[in-house]
Every structure is written in structure tokens, then in C-alpha cells.
């Protein structure tokens, strides 16, 4: 199923730029863009919150949205077992 990325402002202490990631109608992740304060990782995307199979203790950071999309798709494909959505 298709992943869509919807722009949103996220109050997580960064500059605000974020994306709500949907798989069909289901919200599966919130990504935020890292501010200049993160030096080497600035401008990258952080998995601020993952839901269901994307939830975990070690949220990753991505260089760009394409990389985030690939990771999210792979995780969902790997973990998909019909438990989190119909």
C-alpha cells in the first residue's frame, strides 16, 4: 500500500517542519526535520514517533525523505501481519 507524506508543524523543539506519514488511511509515523543545533545531522529527518511496528527504543535519523520512505516501507513490509490495521 502507498505511503503518503503530509506536511505538518510538529512541536518537538526543532524548527517545526515535519511530515505525517500515512499508510493508506493509517498514521504510521511522524518525522521532523533536524535544526542546525544537530550539527552533522542538521537538515536530516528524525523518526520523532513511530506507531505500531515502527515504535521502538532506537528511533533512526535519515539523510533525506527518500531514505526515510525506504526504511519505513521496509519495516512495514517486514512486520506486516495484519495486527495493526485491517
Amino acid at each position, binding site marked *: 500500500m502507498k505511503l503518503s507524506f503530509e506536511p505538518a508543524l510538529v512541536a518537538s523543539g526543532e524548527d517545526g517542519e515535519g511530515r505525517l506519514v500515512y499508510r493508506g488511511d493509517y498514521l504510521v509515523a511522524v518525522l521532523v526535520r533536524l535544526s542546525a*543545533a544537530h550539527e552533522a545531522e542538521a537538515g536530516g529527518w528524525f523518526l520523532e514517533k513511530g506507531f505500531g511496528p515502527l515504535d521502538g527504543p532506537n528511533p533512526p535519523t535519515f539523510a533525506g525523505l527518500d531514505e526515510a520512505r525506504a526504511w519505513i516501507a521496509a519495516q512495514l513490509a517486514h512486520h506486516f501481519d495484519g495486527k495493526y490495521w485491517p
Partner: protein
Amino acid sequence: MTSPEMRKRELSRLVVKLRTIADLSPTAEQALLALPLRLKVFEENADIVSQGDEPSECALVVDGFACRYKVLGEGQRQIMSFHSSGDIPDLQSLHLRVMDHSLLALTPATIAFLPHGPLLALTREHPDIAAAFWRDTLIDAAVFREWLAGVGRRSARQRIAHLICELYTRMRAVGLTDGSSFELPVTQAELGDALGLSSVHVNRVMQELRRDDLIVSRGRHIAIGEWERLQAAGDFDPEYLHLREQRAA
């Protein structure tokens, strides 16, 4: 093996540490200073003792910064404690044959290895040394309880403020602080591995603590801004460290 004078210099770190938590007779201190030892220098990120090892010596940190850790599935690491000069992080190996975790040098570190035989003999001959080691082990457990409560129930801001308070208090007790500042030679990723946080969260909170004037930090150097407020931010009460003397900063 090193000369007796050299040994005294290395072992005096241990005596300074034990004095912060226990009463030692002058005889006991002399006996500690006469322990045989083997010195070894470790590079940054080298294992001092590894999980699964069956050590025949205990590792006394003379110089440098070390941590105890476990590697979990998918290469994730949990750091379980930080150690500086005077600590014997693997004292348990005196009574537990196999290491159930590893000890790592986070900076270049000088380690004095104390053979188990003479160390055990010392605890038999000097009950106050045995009591001091026991007390050290009990405080170790108290620190783990505090960390468990933190990782389970404290916010990212509380965890980081708490850890800074703990390390500052412990290092001040053994004379490793300079006024209100100390060296915290760990990366944000290592802090994250200790506190169960992503390095993104560690970075955010460090910025926040700086902005709120709770700390001043430059690289690995941390100065306490407002001690009372930092303690409040970290929900920190030094009681669990059971130091004999707890002076105000």
C-alpha cells in the same frame, strides 16, 4: 610488577575513593597501598574486561573514564554505569567467576589490575576492608536502582540532569572536580546509550539545560550553572550515593 612507590601512587586513588564511603584504619590503608598490581594502558573504546571472561584480577581505574555495558540484539548497546579514577567496576569478579557484562575504556585509560588472591587475603585479614568493599557493592546496587527508576520513569530532561548531578557529586567526593566544573568525556551517543535516549533527544536536552543556565558546557567540559535548580530538574537527591560527607557545592 611496579615498584612499591609507584604502586602507592596508583593505589592511593583506591584509598581516596574508599574513604568517601567507609572508615578505614591506618593499618588497613597501609595494607591496601601494598597490594601487588599490574598496570596497563587502554586505548579509547577498548574493552578492559569482556562479557564471558573469567578474570583472575580486578580492574582499578587509575586514570581515564570507563563504563559497564551490555550489547543487545541488532548491535544496540546499553551503558549501565560510568566510572572514574578510584573505582573498581569489576569488583564483583572477586566472587562471581564469569563476567555477565563488559567494561570499556571511554577515553584512553590507565588500569591497575589487582590479582584476586592477594585481594581476597586482604579482605580476610582486614574486616574493615571487607566491609568497605561490601559497602561499595551495596552502593553500586543503589546506583543501579536509581538508574532503573530513571530509565523507567523519568523524562529525558530529568534523566540527563540527574546523571550530571550524580557524576558531579561522585567526582567531587574524590577530588576530580575543579570548583563547579568537571570533565564529562562522553559523546551524546554514549549518553543516549546510558539513558535509553536517542542522541537527538540528548542534544535537545543539553541545549535546553544550557539555555536555562543550569549548565555551561564546552566540548567535554561541564560547569554547573545553578546547582539547586539542576538538582530539582533532575529530581536528584544524593542520599543513594551514601557518601560520608556531602558538602554543598
